[in-house]
């Protein structure tokens, strides 16, 4: 089972390795205080306000404070972070990020495609100049952020009506079902040979077929390779008796991966997969 776990881990790491700058982790909150400028109560108050707004309008507004921009321009960093996290609903791209880099003394409002009409660059700029920066200059980050998001909410209100969440988040079951289906067919069709060496070629074929099918279904390379390898291993290591007797050899490995896929479904905040195109404005103090 160690092989399974390490391979699954490797796959996940390979998927993560694509992002260019290092981004803070998105947890179940709309306030990601990586730089540590809020206390717990302030964070909760902001999160509550933003959560309220989201239930009313489905707009996702997220406040993020960043320790370091790693030498990136804040506008360059901002849209990549928004895309990386997928803030905003996928079909509406109605996300807004308020990014504060206290060490670089920079702030930015990053606006998703769908809200560029309600929150144009000039409005973002005005909010930064008039509502956020004067308070930041006095050193009160919380008040600045608070009045900033108040104005942002006012600006974007009414642009979208709330949509019932259809819950189309990709669940592991959707991916797992074809894997198991294909694997079981092939295992049943195979000679009952306990020697796993003789299974290598059939296992390779099964794995590649599963990979190809999943490629046609998802068009995601990481997922297809992942499925191909898992099917390969299932076919290679499991004998028919394992399955019929109810002894599922892979349960350890799968529960592990389902944790990392489905874990974000619980709790307060799910990013919807919205995208960003560089709209918004920046300021410095």
């Amino acid at each position, binding site marked *: 089972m160690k092989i399974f776990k390490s391979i699954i881990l490797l796959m996940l790491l390979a998927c993560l390795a694509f992002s260019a700058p290092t981004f803070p982790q998105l947890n179940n909150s709309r306030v990601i205080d990586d730089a540590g400028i809020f206390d717990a109560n302030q964070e909760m108050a902001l999160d509550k306000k933003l959560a309220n707004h989201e239930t009313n309008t489905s707009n996702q507004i997220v406040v993020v404070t960043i320790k370091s921009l790693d030498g990136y321009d804040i506008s360059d960093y901002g849209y990549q972070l928004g895309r990386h996290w997928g803030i905003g609903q996928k079909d509406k791209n109605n996300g807004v990020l308020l990014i504060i880099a206290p060490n670089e003394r920079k702030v930015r409002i990053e606006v998703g495609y769908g809200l560029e009409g309600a929150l144009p660059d*000039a409005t973002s700029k005005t909010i930064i100049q008039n509502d956020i920066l004067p308070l930041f200059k006095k050193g009160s980050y919380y008040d600045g952020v608070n009045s900033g998001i108040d104005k942002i909410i006012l600006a974007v209100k009414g642009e979208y009506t709330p949509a019932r969440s259809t819950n189309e988040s990709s669940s592991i079951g959707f991916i797992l079902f074809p894997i198991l289906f294909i694997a079981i067919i092939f295992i049943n069709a195979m000679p009952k040979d306990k020697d796993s060496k003789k299974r290598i070629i059939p296992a390779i074929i099964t794995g590649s077929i599963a990979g190809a099918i999943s490629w046609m279904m998802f068009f995601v390379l990481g997922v297809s390779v992942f499925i191909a390898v898992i099917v390969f291993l299932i076919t290679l290591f499991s004998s028919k008796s394992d399955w019929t007797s109810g002894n599922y050899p892979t349960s350890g490995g799968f529960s592990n991966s389902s944790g990392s896929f489905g874990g974000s479904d619980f709790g307060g905040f799910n990013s919807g997969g919205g995208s960003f195109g*560089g709209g918004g404005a920046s300021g410095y103090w």
Partner: protein
Amino acid sequence: MKIVGIIGAILLLLAAIIILPKVNNVPRLDENVNMYASQLDNQYKRRSDLIPNLVATVKGYASHEKDVLTQVTEARAKVGQMTLTPEVLNNPEAFKAYQNAQDGLSSALSRLMMVTENYPELKANENFLQLQAQLEGTENRIAVARKDYIESVKEYNLELRTVPGKWVAALLYPEAEVKQNFTATTTESATPKVAF
């Protein structure tokens, strides 16, 4: 004999497995490039649409900066005649001309914005501030759209140049050609920002 047959069948199957999912990649990536190209073109258009207002506002405060203002207007006129169509994407010369025209407008605009630093009254003008914010946002969007476009062309060209996409293209899409990409301009590699 039986073994040879089995091995042959396996090889055939493997080839099918490798190639089948790739069959639609060339047109799919091609459409992808076209989409990003029109997004980029949109952003350039948006910038060009901002210019008449900007020039009029600056003129009100700095009418004797004629040189810079005419440069911007001329550069805009040049850009106005061009669109980033799929034909342009496949024509190195037209593509180069498009890129040069847009770069020309970029540098004329940055010169204009530099000049405005000398006019405190202009800088306090509400209308000008709005236009400046819009211009900044648009330039940023252009940068993002350019990056997306470059990325999509890279993906397309990689598909055409590497196996097995190369074989698929030779078989099914013989007319597909490697596309033009942007080269980083001097203004891009060293962004001059005057801010104090």
